[in-house]
């Protein structure tokens, strides 16, 4: 943006494209050329800005003027009157302030933010999470007011069903349907739970959502309680998120004080209160029935289903459990309507998804994109591609329950079905980019080590099977792989997937099976050639001093086992027998003279 006088951002979302957004852009380009202004103006594309009914959309900065309902003919007027004469074309200006467009207004227009569409995270970074007034100013609790005054519970459920919202915790179960099952139960004692036990290593979607905008979750839960007939909500949140807990506690206190929680909310007949329940360091408690047991004061161990929680859950009563991100979407579904919400995304997966983009990409962080965005767009568009000129190898989605997708899947349009078809899962949103320097076998071992440690121990396949898979993988990475190991991993993995009691066990083999499917040759190299092509498995490496060694002796000094010999100013040598592969010499060498082979 630096030296240009103007920045034009053209919405490149699907609705605008259908309405000739490209032609409008073409016309703008042509007019700018004709006026010899092209070099003064930067043209960006952005992801859907959200005002699809008013598209095509154009945003002019400085000044953040938003134009809508454009036709190619309007380009001349905009360039002449606004850019040249300095006066916006008032008949084309949209004054409407879309709910999630605000984020874009403040942060948009960059490689990272421009393509995003922040619905669940619409207020994060904008409101002070500890100020109820801020949330109210951003149309907070307007959805709740509408629900309580204008809608019946059944109408609320219909709206959520029509929106196509699916559970964002990973399973992708249609939210409206889940609400309907719970509402249908004749019990008067029902519970609404928010699953904030985000345990995937490297995932921080829910934490950020709660820390940044706790009220949206409360609002979502109260609406959910109204819809299904519950008066008690519980937020189950990890003890490792003290700031999120603190913000939730403040939000609850503030909401209670203003009559938004508690008896007769906003003067209506509906009462609802929320209690916070802390986890205590058990990943398995993210599973619905395990979470229920944990709230009840037991060991967090799952149980067979049926009965499903919507019929018999917490304390044996009908219980509705949804993920943080699902709840965060509810107020928007109500305010903006199911029709708008369902216009975003793919045929089967509506709305947006928050991802925690991490690993070997330039831009890491939390992103929210419409379903249907391709992996390529995310990794190379928003993420900025792989640093240091390295080659893309795979993207891991779904955390320890997911799989690794190699290059051929980059153009997959992300939704629940397409990711499953590709051999991974959506999961809760973890997305880790892997380059050529990562060993897929070691990555699989990393994930199963985690799942093994977090296994509750109740059922045989998960408790014993993941342990055996880990043992095999450990042997392979230590150079002791044996013929038949891959077949054993496959056999065990498929059995554990089908026979385990809960989702943790059922998905624990996913990273292993998907890496075997997509990177089998790496496994075979480890086992048969004792080679790790990514040079990560230290037991399979040799550190060799190259010819460009200047003989400074830095490596010799740091070697803890005196495995390096050589005279000053002469090429040194590492004794492979003594070398314990600690890698200190490699780090100490300033001349890149040591290679890992």
């Amino acid at each position: 943006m630096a030296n240009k006088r103007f920045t034009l951002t053209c919405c490149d979302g699907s609705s605008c494209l259908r309405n000739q957004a490209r032609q409008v852009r073409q016309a703008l380009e042509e007019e700018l050329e004709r006026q010899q202004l092209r070099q003064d103006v930067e043209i960006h594309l952005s992801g859907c800005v959200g005002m699809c009914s008013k598209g095509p959309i154009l945003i002019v900065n400085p000044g953040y003027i938003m134009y809508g309902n454009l036709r190619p003919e309007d380009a001349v007027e905009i360039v002449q009157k606004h850019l040249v004469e300095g006066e916006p074309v008032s008949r084309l200006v949209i004054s409407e302030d879309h709910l999630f467009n605000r984020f874009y207004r403040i942060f948009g227009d960059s490689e990272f933010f421009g393509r995003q569409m922040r619905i669940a995270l619409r207020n994060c970074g904008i409101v002070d999470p500890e100020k109820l007034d801020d949330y109210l100013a951003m149309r907070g609790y307007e959805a709740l007011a509408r629900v309580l005054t204008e809608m019946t519970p059944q109408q609320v459920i219909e709206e959520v069903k029509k929106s196509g919202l699916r559970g964002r915790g990973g399973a992708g179960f249609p939210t409206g349907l889940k609400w309907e099952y719970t509402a249908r139960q004749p019990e008067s004692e029902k519970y609404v739970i928010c699953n904030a036990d985000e345990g995937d290593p490297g995932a921080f979607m829910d934490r950020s959502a709660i820390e940044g905008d706790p009220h949206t979750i409360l609002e979502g839960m109260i609406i959910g309680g109204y819809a299904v007939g519950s008066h008690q909500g519980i937020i189950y949140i990890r003890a490792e998120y003290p700031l999120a807990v603190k913000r939730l506690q403040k939000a609850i206190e503030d909401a209670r004080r203003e009559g938004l929680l508690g008896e007769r909310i906003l003067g209506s007949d509906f009462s609802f209160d929320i209690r916070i329940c802390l986890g205590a360091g058990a990943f398995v408690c993210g599973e619905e029935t395990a979470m229920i047991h944990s709230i009840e004061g037991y060991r967090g161990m799952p149980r067979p289903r049926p009965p499903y929680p919507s019929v018999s859950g917490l304390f044996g009563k009908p219980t509705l459990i949804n993920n943080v991100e699902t709840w965060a979407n509810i107020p928007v579904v109500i305010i903006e309507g199911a029709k708008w919400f369902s216009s975003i995304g793919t045929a089967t997966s509506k709305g947006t998804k928050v991802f925690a983009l991490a690993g070997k990409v330039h831009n890491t962080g939390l992103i929210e994109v419409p379903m249907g965005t391709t992996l390529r767009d995310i990794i190379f568009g928003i993420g900025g591609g792989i640093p240091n000129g390295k080659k893309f190898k795979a993207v891991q989605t779904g955390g320890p329950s997911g799989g690794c997708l190699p290059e051929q899947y980059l153009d997959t349009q992300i939704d629940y079905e397409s990711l499953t078809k590709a051999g991974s899962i959506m999961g809760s949103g973890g997305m880790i980019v892997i380059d050529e320097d990562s060993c897929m076998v070691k990555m699989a071992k990393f994930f199963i080590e985690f799942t093994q440690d977090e296994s509750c121990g109740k059922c045989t396949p998960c408790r014993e099977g993941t342990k055996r898979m880990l043992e095999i993988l450990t042997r392979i990475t230590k150079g002791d792989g044996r013929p038949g190991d891959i077949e054993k991993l496959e056999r065990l993995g498929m059995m554990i997937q089908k026979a385990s009691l809960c989702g943790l066990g059922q998905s624990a083999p996913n990273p292993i099976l998907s890496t075997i499917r997509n990177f089998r040759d790496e496994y075979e190299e480890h086992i048969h050639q004792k080679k790790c092509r990514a040079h990560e498995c230290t037991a399979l490496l040799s550190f060799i001093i190259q010819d460009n060694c200047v003989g400074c002796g830095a490596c010799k000094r740091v070697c803890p086992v005196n495995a390096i010999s050589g005279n000053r100013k002469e090429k040194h040598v590492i004794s492979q027998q003594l070398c314990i592969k600690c890698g200190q010499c490699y780090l100490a060498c300033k001349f890149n003279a040591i290679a890992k082979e």
Partner: protein
Amino acid sequence: MTQTAVQVKEDKLQSLREYMQTVKDRPYPESYLIEILHKVQNIFGYLPREMMDEVAHTLEIPTAHIWGVATFYHHFNREPIGKHVVSICMGTACYVKGASAVLETLKKELGIEVGKTTPDGLFTLREARCLGACGIAPVIMVDEKIYGQLDTKKTIDIINQYRKAAAVEQTAAGAESRRGKP
């Protein structure tokens, strides 16, 4: 421990006991177990057996059940944690450079086994996997600080450093409490 610190602990314990009494009359009192164990750990730093027994009697939950819960969740400590956690690296490089001797020195000097805490509450001794400082092996980490190239004398010196600092802190706190609270 200073007088005021003890008093604070007593106050917290008192309010926990009052809280447990209110919980008894609510529906599903057992569902507050984990919350109460969190509170106990906030006061004591771990879950003392006497406290688990007290919770069992007050809330009428079987002790075995509480034990099952306390051992299931990683967050709960069943042993007290010292003020300083001393982790000795047991990676290969350190091992080769004499980590076992350092471990023996620590065990003797602190008078405890691995995983335990000294009676004065100052040190907990743990083993760690490779800390990634192989160039200065053998290595220990006290809280977040790494000390390398250790021998018997250096190890004992480091421990004494922390002991001295703790004693100084104690004297200062004692003087302050004698001066009276502001």
